[in-house]
Each structure stands twice: as C-alpha cells, then as structure tokens.
C-alpha cells in the first residue's frame, strides 16, 4: 500500500473510499456478536457447537458472496462488487480457519484428526475445502498477480470453485434431518458456478475481454 499516495480529501481517494473498510468491519462484526453472546451466556447449553456452526456458516456464506461478485458486475455493470471480492474471499478463509480451530478445540487437539480424515468423508471433504482455499488466500495480494502472471494466478484462484462445492457438501452431510438450509446454499452455489460454465461455453469472446 506504500505506493498509494494518501488522499488529500475524501474525494481524492477514488469512488466509494469507505467500501473496503466497511466490508472488513461488517464482515468481522459477527466475531463481536459471538463474543458478546459468550459473555452474556447466550450461546446455550453447548457453546462450542453453536460457534462451530456459526463460523462454518459464515465461511460458506462469505465464500458464496465472493463468487457472486463477478456475475453481479456483469449483470449490473457496477464495478464495486469486483473491488470487494478479495475481502470476501479472505473473510471466508478466516472463518474457515476459525471453524477448523474450534473443531480441533472440541476434539481436544490433533490426535483424532488422522483417523477423522481417513474414516469420515464428512471431515475429509471439509478439510479439503479449506486446503483448496489456502493457495488463493496466500496469493490474494496485488503483487501476486504480477509475480505469477495473470493466467497462472487465475488458474490458482479457480480452486475456489471446488472449495465452495466441497464446503456446501460438508454442510449438507453435517446437517441431520432437515436439509433445506444446506440445499439453499448448494442451490445458490450451483447457480453461480453454472453461470460461469454457461458463460465460458456460450459467452464467446466477450468473456475474455470481461474477465480482466
């Protein structure tokens, strides 16, 4: 960020200068709500399970929102969605990490993890989703595009698609009984990924120009 000259006035820093900070503040505010719930004893009889569920939902939700950015820009012509895509992706990665840490806390350490990964597809799939997000998170800075070259950077970031699909599957498997909510998430994701497939097949040359 050192290359950016500090804005002389609010108007000097480009359109919507408050957008990214607002996404960070709003995106991290559930942490404050969780802390407040914990302090007020409002997490219920099984606090850890509540936090495990909420961080998992936050990860999947912000990841799906990050995948909404490009289509939204295409459909509306707005440019602001593309400018918060990185922030949403990083929020998703952060919440997924918190979700894993809470799971390990619940398990009392790493001891049971190898068996869980080997024997329980539910866990395997969730952990794989997080692993697929890692390269994208590590190369989310501006310099990375330059270092890797755009094509390679883009290929790497397409790992987010299978990660999101695995995340949705993990949620679907994790819910007992009423699967309406995981199906809703899976449906939203299917639309967003389906749109990309459709566009790459039938979108023709426009795709190349727009995908910059």
């Amino acid at each position: 960020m050192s290359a950016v000259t500090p804005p002389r006035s609010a108007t000097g820093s480009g359109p919507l200068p408050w957008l990214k900070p607002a996404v960070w503040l709003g995106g991290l505010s559930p942490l404050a709500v969780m802390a407040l719930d914990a302090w007020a004893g409002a997490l219920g009889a099984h606090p850890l399970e509540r936090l495990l569920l909420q961080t998992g939902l936050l990860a999947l939700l912000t990841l799906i929102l990050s995948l909404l950015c490009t289509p939204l820009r295409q459909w509306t012509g707005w440019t602001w969605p593309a400018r918060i895509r990185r922030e949403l992706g990083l929020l998703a990665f952060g919440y997924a990490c918190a979700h894993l840490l809470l799971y390990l806390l619940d398990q009392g350490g790493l001891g049971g993890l190898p068996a869980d990964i080997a024997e329980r597809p539910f866990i395997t799939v969730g952990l794989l989703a997080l692993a697929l997000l890692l390269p994208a998170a590590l190369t989310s800075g501006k310099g990375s595009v330059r270092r890797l070259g755009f094509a390679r950077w883009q290929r790497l970031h397409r790992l987010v698609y299978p990660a999101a699909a695995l995340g949705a599957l993990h949620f679907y498997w994790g819910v007992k009984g009423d699967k309406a909510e995981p199906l809703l998430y899976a449906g939203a994701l299917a639309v967003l990924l389906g749109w990309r497939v459709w566009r790459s097949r039938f979108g023709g040359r426009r795709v190349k120009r727009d995908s910059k």
Partner: protein
Amino acid sequence: MSSTRREFLKYGAQFIGTAAAFGGGLTLLTRRAAPAQELSASGLAAEVPPHQTDELGGLVTPFALATSYNNFYELGWGKGDPARQAELLRRYIAAQEPWTVTFGGEVERPGTYDLAALLGWTDEQERTYRLRCVEAWSMVLPWRGLPLGELLRRVGYTSQARYVQFTSVFAPDALPGQRSSTLDWPYVEGLRLDEALHPLTLLATGLHGEALPAQNGAPLRLVVPWKYGFKSAKSVTHITLTREQPATTWSVAAPREYGFYANVNPQVDHPRWSQASERRLDGTGGLLAERRETLMFNGYADEVSGLYTGQDLRRDF
C-alpha cells in the same frame, strides 16, 4: 458547512451504513440464538440443590439448560426450537385432556388408558440418569416416572410378544415439524421385550421435580438410559407389543447411521464422528464443557450387559 466536511460526513454515514447492513445480514443468517431460558413453573427446579450428582459424581444439568437444548423434531430442527415452540405442544395437550395411551398388539388387556389411570397402577419413582445423545453430548437428568415393566405386566403380554413399539404424538396441525416429510411421522421407536421389562427402563412424567416440560416430551416419554437419546420416544401415545422388530424412525431414515439397538458404545463410531468421548453439558466449564470418556452402556454395563450376552454389538449397533 464546508464541502470537505460535508463529504466526510456523507462518507462516514455510508461507511457505517454499509458495515452495519453487511454485518447485520451475516449475523442474521448465521446466528442461532439460544432460546430465552425458561423459569420453572413452580420454582421447584430452582431449589434443586446445586450440587446434586449421579452415582458417578456427574453434576446434574440445570433445569434451564435441560429445557433449552433439545432434539424434538416435531417442534423444529434447531436445538432451541423445541423450547421456543413448546407452547404449541402445551396447547395440544390441553386440548386433548386427558392424555391417553393405547396398548395394543400382543397384549392381554388391550385398550386405551388415561394417563391418570397409568399413574394409579404403580408408584412414581425418582431416577437420576445420564442421557447420552448420539451426537456426542450428554446430560445428567433427574427424572420422575413409572417403570415400564410394571405397566407391561399390568396390561399383560402374550407369549408371542418379542418387541415393544412406541409411537409418539401425531398432530401435524399442531406440530410444525410434522408438516414436512423430512422424517416419516409419527416418530416410532422400539425395544426388545427384555429391554422394555428391564427395571432401568422408565416412562417419565417429570423432570427436576416438575411435571415433564413440553420440550422434553410431555406428558409421557420413554427413558432408556443405556441407549442413545433418540431411542427415548417423546410424548408417547401408543405402546404396541409385536412379534417382529419394529421399523424405527431413524433406523429407516438413515440405516447406516442409526441402528435398532443404539446401545451407547464407545467402540462403535458414528460414520461422521467418534463415539469414544462426549461433552457433558452441565453448565460448568464455559465454552469448553468437560469432554469425558464415554462408558460402555453409558455406565450401566453392570445392570444391562447381561441382556446382550453372545450378541455381536458391532453388527447390532
């Protein structure tokens, strides 16, 4: 007012508005608030000595937690839903008054009996049992109830009877969960006859010195302390003695995950998690309620392991 200051205020307002809307939306979609904790109707529950324990020294789960964290899918799928929706069942029970239980099948004196009649057949007993949920959490709960075996001997069963089927309340008009076909309603559970006759098996009518709260399965629920919680059918309306093993709700819905026997067994894992340990929900420990080793037959092995001599408990999970 200078234009810079006006810009500053405008951006500030947009910043706060966007952050609040985004953060509020995320919280709204992902936060599952616990229901307001219920004060016991008579205040009796509050008077239960705070350090009451089971025979192994486990603290009794406070009334407020035992009535706000429940699996009772007729009243919703969230853990807090049964408490939030309890009024629906309370109203239904009031409209039904008196609650009846129909004994049928291989029974010598079949019929429909008022709950009050059942209470006259044998004395209610106080039993503090561990409840181990198949989801790897547990509580210690002070029940009041009727030993099921006494009732079965009272109605009599034929020599053909080998199993006992329990059917829960069926009232889709009153109970929102039954308006979706996620499970095959009504909820059905079952025991082998010798399990049903075992002195530990209870038909509970009370909890923590109170009449059984709706979210815990009012007015009458099964309690089988050495089996996972889902075996203990709530709001029972029919008890049917059968020759064949009953098709129980969860073992039909997900046969790989939930068996007919469902004995608490730390050596037989659920496909999605280990059953070797459990989190004890007794309101202590804050975020990290104590995780403890799960005991074979939930700590009742001395009493019940004789029921399963020679049986492969991995196959009959």
